[in-house]
């Protein structure tokens, strides 16, 4: 049975289902249990900075919901070691910006152990992490650094655009035998959509058509899918029928879906919250001009953040982020 719940709750539900169905699934992270003097009366577990893991420690116990010190490198490295030896840890990296202090366990350990060991290692690790701007959290708490993890061979990276996908993608990530980075975009965390109560997975590596159209393809991911859909509505008013493709998975990238849509529309705009250099948007554009060359009727435009840090001022932050209007303007430029 489906109810409308926010993405944050859908994530909580996915975690609960995964833990209930597999005793090897454990949660680790800063404040995931949420501290609190558990013995003391009248206190509640906080369940992480976004409250997403609230209730899980109470339900599954402190052995399976581990509050760690503020030690991201140690926490992720420990999670990799646990994954390598038979656990299925779900580690929380509070904000993806903190990759700066803990890239090695992902870059040089989780991503490479299977390969370096000739296929004889398995690292079923999931890393949940909040991404994106929009809350006036400034330059060190607002980045969309998933391009770093997507670029690393051996890792997978997924990003839901709504509550339904969040639940299914997270369950798929936890049950995947490879290390998966699960992004939780700020822009959709508190949006609601219909989510079944049951256990279901959304396959990693497959994009979804969020809106069918024939004139132009808008490729989005995470919070930009919503913007692309809004843009499509605006364009429809002008008689332009836009298809919206939701990548869902940044690595592996569903190249076939991108090319199929491009073949249909001949025009493509890719919309990404991240900065422009070395990102998913460039990869999509590069794919188009390589294997999609014959389908192209117009330049491929990228609507991304500018090549700057994220500013604090809400006015500047709005100017920084992609938007439906910017997408519409980009489509108009295609001529």
């Amino acid at each position, binding site marked *: 049975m489906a109810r409308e719940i926010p993405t944050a709750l859908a994530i909580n539900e996915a975690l609960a289902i995964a833990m209930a169905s597999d005793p090897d699934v454990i949660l680790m992270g*800063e*404040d995931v*249990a*949420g*501290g*609190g*003097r558990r013995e*003391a*009366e*009248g*206190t*509640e*577990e*906080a369940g992480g*900075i976004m409250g997403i893991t609230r209730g899980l420690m109470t339900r599954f116990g402190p052995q399976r919901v581990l*509050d*760690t*010190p*503020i*030690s991201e*490198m*140690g926490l992720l490295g420990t999670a990799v070691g646990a994954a390598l030896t038979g656990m299925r840890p779900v580690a929380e990296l509070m904000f993806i*910006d*903190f990759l*700066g*202090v803990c890239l090695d366990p992902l870059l040089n350990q989780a991503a490479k152990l299977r390969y370096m060991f000739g296929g004889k290692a398995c690292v079923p690790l999931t890393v949940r992490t909040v991404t994106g701007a929009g*809350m*006036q*959290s*400034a*330059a*060190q*708490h607002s980045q969309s650094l998933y391009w770093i993890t997507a670029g690393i061979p051996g890792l997978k990276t997924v990003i839901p655009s709504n509550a339904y996908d969040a639940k299914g993608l997270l369950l798929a990530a936890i049950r995947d035998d490879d290390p998966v980075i699960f992004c939780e975009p700020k822009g959709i965390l508190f949006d609601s959509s219909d989510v079944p109560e049951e256990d279901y997975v959304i396959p990693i590596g497959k994009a979804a058509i969020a809106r069918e159209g024939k004139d132009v393809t808008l490729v989005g991911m995470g919070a930009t899918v919503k913007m692309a859909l809004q843009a499509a509505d605006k364009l429809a008013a002008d008689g332009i029928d836009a298809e919206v493709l939701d990548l869902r998975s940044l690595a592996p990238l569903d190249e076939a879906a991108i090319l199929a849509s491009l073949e249909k529309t001949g025009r493509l705009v890719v919309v990404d919250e991240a900065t422009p250099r070395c990102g998913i948007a460039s990869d999509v554009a590069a794919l188009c001009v390589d294997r999609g060359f014959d389908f192209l009727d117009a330049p491929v435009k990228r609507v991304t953040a*500018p*090549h*700057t*840090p994220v*500013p*604090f*001022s*809400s*006015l*500047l932050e709005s*100017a*920084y982020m992609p938007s439906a209007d910017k997408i519409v303007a980009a489509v108009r430029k295609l001529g």
Partner: protein
Amino acid sequence: MGCVKRLRTAPFVGWALFSAAGSVNNPGMKLTKEQLLVNYRKMRMIRSFEEKLNELVNSGRLGGFLHLSIGQEAVAAGVCAHLSERDYVSTTHRGHGHCIAKGVRVKGMMAELFGRSTGLCKGKGGSMHIADMDQGMLGANGIVGAGIPLATGAALTCKLKKTGGVAVAFFGDGASNQGQFHEALNMASNWKLPALYVVENNGWGEFTPTEFVVPVRDIAVRADSYAMRSAIADGNDFFDVYEKAGEAIAAARAGEGPTLLECKTYRYMGHYVGDPLAYRPPGEVDRWKNEHDALTGFESRVKADGVIEDMELRRIDEEVVEELSAAVADAENDPVPAVEALYEDVYAKE
């Protein structure tokens, strides 16, 4: 095999360690009346500044994530009382107090928090990145632990350029679990840098009690890993902080290398403004407020010593409130940044 006993923080009583007050010497001996008033003013300013912020956010007039240091004022004031413009300070997400104590003007800070182009960072930094290079304030920092190597580098500059300056890193108990803490302290001790590492042990890291994640009672013991001097101060007692920081900074200036100074203190407010605080046992904060408040303690000490009269303090309180009201009014009327500012200041030449 030497089995070290695992000591855990006794809840709520960090400061009780100092209750004998044996470590507090007569303030009159070291500080002039003027200095006492300056430092009272700083502490009052920190508290009032942050109370104002709390009010502004809760009434929807101010956005962003704000971390208040109310309750911890004595640490900022006691340490910075020994610093001048040639000295450097780096701080954390909870850095308003250190800025104010280091001499940063509240007008520029307030404008920054309001995201105005007149802000210290032109509205691009906000609370977690307030900085003032002219005052040697190397910035608040949103990355827990990241300010520690920054101050270490500033101390290296002081040493290599023989400026006589020192660099102070303020950080929390939680930050002492970061690799950056370990790496930087080792280097600083090895190079005998003129640095001071001030860990404010306020009993919490976000929503998690320190004792849940740190198996030692005193963060100060970690200095031994680097053959570094260490000391523990009652972080809610200005005079104790003042004295111990003074010794450490003097040693640093004398070329004797860095010190790790642990200040036991407490965070009155939530982790951030808006924190529902449901994880904190009721009553915990009241004991600190009622029994060991930094401002109340300071006030009764100086009054008891007969140095300062009540009226003098109340006048400061009023001045502070006025200054803050003016700062808020100015900030609210100041211009917002032009959209082009978004693209500026990324590189030196554009």
